[in-house]
């Protein structure tokens, strides 16, 4: 329910639209579906967008949304059903719980908060699969979280763009 870019900012933003949250999640799912092979360091876009909206709007992004997004990821990546939902649920809960704290910080420190959350998401998935008898994918797997944390700055900018629009449009003074 944040109405400013960060809590210490003076700028008041437009309220977020529900369809934009869902649209950004769908776009993240699409980015995740692009087959890049075994390239390491590709972030999990869905986890990143889920973390973003859980921090910004913890009341608008429910656990049900995270669960369904996780299920779709499970089917798309051919992994065990329940692996992504479990990790995404814990991420959504943790990010929602931390949201009041995170938004007081500038973007660099926000990214530092997000990094352990993304890492924990991946650790949950690794533990789930290792218990299920799969092979350890190597330490390069965790690089995705670091690139995800780096992407926090452009992501914040892009996903907040619709809310930066002016409150009332003046025909005579367009800017």
């Amino acid at each position, binding site marked *: 329910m944040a109405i400013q870019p960060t809590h210490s900012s003076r700028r008041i933003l437009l309220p977020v639209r529900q369809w934009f949250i869902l649209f950004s999640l769908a776009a993240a799912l699409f980015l995740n579906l692009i*087959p890049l092979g075994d390239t390491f360091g590709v972030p999990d876009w869905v986890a990143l967008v889920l973390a973003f909206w859980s921090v910004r709007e913890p009341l608008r992004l*429910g*656990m049900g949304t995270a669960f369904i997004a996780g299920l779709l990821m499970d*089917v798309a990546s*051919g992994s065990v*059903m329940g692996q992504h939902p479990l990790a995404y*649920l814990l991420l959504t*809960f943790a990010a929602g719980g931390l949201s009041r704290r995170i938004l007081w910080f500038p973007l660099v420190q926000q990214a530092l908060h997000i990094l352990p959350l993304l890492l924990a998401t991946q650790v949950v998935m690794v533990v789930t699969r290792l218990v*299920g008898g799969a092979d*350890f994918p190597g330490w390069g797997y965790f690089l995705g979280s670091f690139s995800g944390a780096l992407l926090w700055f452009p992501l914040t900018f892009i996903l907040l763009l619709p809310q930066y629009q002016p409150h009332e449009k003046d025909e005579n003074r367009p800017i």
Partner: protein
Amino acid sequence: MSVVGHQPPPFFKRGPAPLARLAFFVILSLALLVLDLKYRYLELARQGLAVVLYPLQRTAYTPVDLYEQLGDYFSSLADVQRENVQLKRKELESANWLLRQQHLELENQRLRELLDMKARQSVPGTLAEILYTARDPFSRRVIVDKGSQHDIAAGQAVVDEAGVLGQVTRVYPLQSEVTLVTDKNQAVPVKIVRNGLRTVLFGASGGQLELRFLAANADVQPGDLLVTSGLDGVYLPGLPVAKVLRVDRDAAYSFARIVCEPAAGVEKHGQVLILGAREALPPQVAETEARDKPVKGRKARKKE
């Protein structure tokens, strides 16, 4: 029955507490995990969701496809010509074998008839193309562009021009998932060409294979060729699978550590052949009867 004034006004209603919701969904996903890992009950749900996701998946594949096409377009004429010369030479080299194969097959069939043996099975194949590697980093799987609409069924063997690539493990309407032989949970019954030693080949990390549970003094040498033994009823006998790379015999362990290299281009993309389902092996009659009806068997023996 609610009494007026004893409930909070509706604008305070926010449903169950976050922790309760988390607990509910976590239990739900744990249940899904157990159902899928242990009982494989969720294949139908997975198929349904896969159909919904298919258009999105196809669209997401377009940029990669375009990139590859662009690469093909700009690959120089010289490359194609060199490849053409190579292929022609290869064809000439294999012509000797191919021309005699028909003769040999006929001869083999006649000899088998003479010996009253069962005829060798020949299975039809479906040509398919590997689209991409599955995203899941915990397993080694690829997606191919033929599915249940093209009469592909789970369990069929997949080969390329050099040897066994893997096995179809999951079939969607228009795509199917092939588990490569290098997957940790994929086992292929093989035999060593040189001495006919039967064993089972498992996937190992790093795109390699491993012969497990062979005694430290087993007759295996680096360079040995492994072909399918056909005992599983899935793979046809005699398909090349791997070559032994190195054998570590450590006296401290009772088993030798034998690392093999896949024969097929397992980690490459390209055309593959999905072999049709093999005829089922004859059921092991005597053993199952003995296990199912132990009392009757004992009686029969007494009569004798």
